[in-house]
């Protein structure tokens, strides 16, 4: 179902934030190699980009839903 798919993606936003936090702390670890650091950085940037994409920037009007599950514009 489309809804389930969307829902799963939304959870990723929080997950992504958690992941970014984790790789930020890894970046400060001196035992992490430069190569790995580049990979971490790239992953972070990619995650942020995806986070941005996750946020729908279209302004929404409130919808009304009836008993049959049909939505209508709210006036």
């Amino acid at each position, binding site marked *: 179902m489309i809804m*389930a798919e969307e829902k799963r993606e939304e959870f990723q936003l929080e997950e992504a934030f958690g992941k970014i936090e984790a790789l*930020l702390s890894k*970046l400060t670890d001196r035992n992490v190699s430069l190569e790995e650091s580049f990979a971490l950085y790239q992953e972070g940037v990619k995650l942020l980009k995806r986070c941005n994409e996750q*946020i*729908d920037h279209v302004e929404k009007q409130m919808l009304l*839903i009836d008993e049959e599950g049909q939505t209508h514009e709210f006036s």
Partner: protein
Amino acid sequence: MAKNVYSVGQVNAYIKNIFIRDVVLNRIYVKGEISNCKYHTSGHIYFSLKDESGAIACVMFAGNRKGLSFQLQEGQKVIVLGGVSVYERDGRYQLYAKEIVLDGEGALYQQFAKLKRKLEEMGMFSPQYKKDIPFYSRRIGIVTAPTGAAIRDIINIAKRRNPYVQLILYPALVQGEQAAESIVKGIQVLERHGVDVMIVGRGGGSIEDLWAFNEEIVAKAIFACKTPVISAVGHETDTTIADYVADLRAPTPSAAAELAVADYRQLLGGMELFKNQLTDRMEQKILWYRQRFQNQKLLLLHASPRYKLNEKQQYAADLTDKLRQGMLRKLEERKHQVQLYAGRLEGCSPLKKLQQGYSYTETKDGKALQSISQIQAGEQMTIHVTDGKILAYVEAIEPLERNG
């Protein structure tokens, strides 16, 4: 006359004892209508409770007044909690009131307490069933009245925090007989439709107004709902069954909107911060590695054969230099010595002696003439002076005694 005669006091005391021992009479709820109500200056309140069938005298002592939260008025329907006992002086029984509540409210409250206990025992308020409210919801379902302050507040706050979320309202009846069913329907419709989180609630009102949120079917619908539900009923002080069973209780509809809708600017700010942190830390990392590289390079350089060779060459050059210096010094020394000798030699030069007026004489066979024994009269000799030599013949020889 009968054998056993009792005093009035004894009879009253006996009856009182019976009343006191009676479990039911000691703690009893009595409902009725207030009449003959008198607030005494002592703080005690005297009144009667009556219904169609009769009346009972009641007293609420000043010490129990905290059990009454309103002004008693004639004709009010109330429920009195108290104990029935005997007033010995008048020989009559009366109800000693501890708590008085208005009848409707009292009944509702009892119903509330009963349902709360029941659902609690079923584990429906248990934290283990509470679902987390999503971090970022895109679709927010709302079950409330389409008019009124609650939906307005929710829309305003949601729009302010994040205009990009989709609000979907199920316009529900939130008070009256059909309210509970309508709310249940709304929860089910929204769940089927698919939302990330649901706000179920209404604005403030009396306990009767809020009653739908204390109905068992509403509680069960919230509990069964797989989508996280935020309850938002009335004001902060109103707590309903729906609040206990919801995944999160918001004190007001506005607060519910704050809890459901992630602040868009804050989110962007957080992402910006992440971006800067990522870049900063990467730059630091690179800097650190660059420094490390420089260090390693230096270390490697020192360990390289070229460096060692250079070092040896330098040493060899130094040695050469020292050697040359030593040699030069030796030469100088010798030169100096030669000069000294030359000086001394000069002092011994025969030429110099000649210049001082001495002369050098040699025999004809070229030997230095130093004694009269080397020559005889008539023999030739050569006398050397500064500017030439003189050939001469010996005239005579005279030995001479010289001292010193």
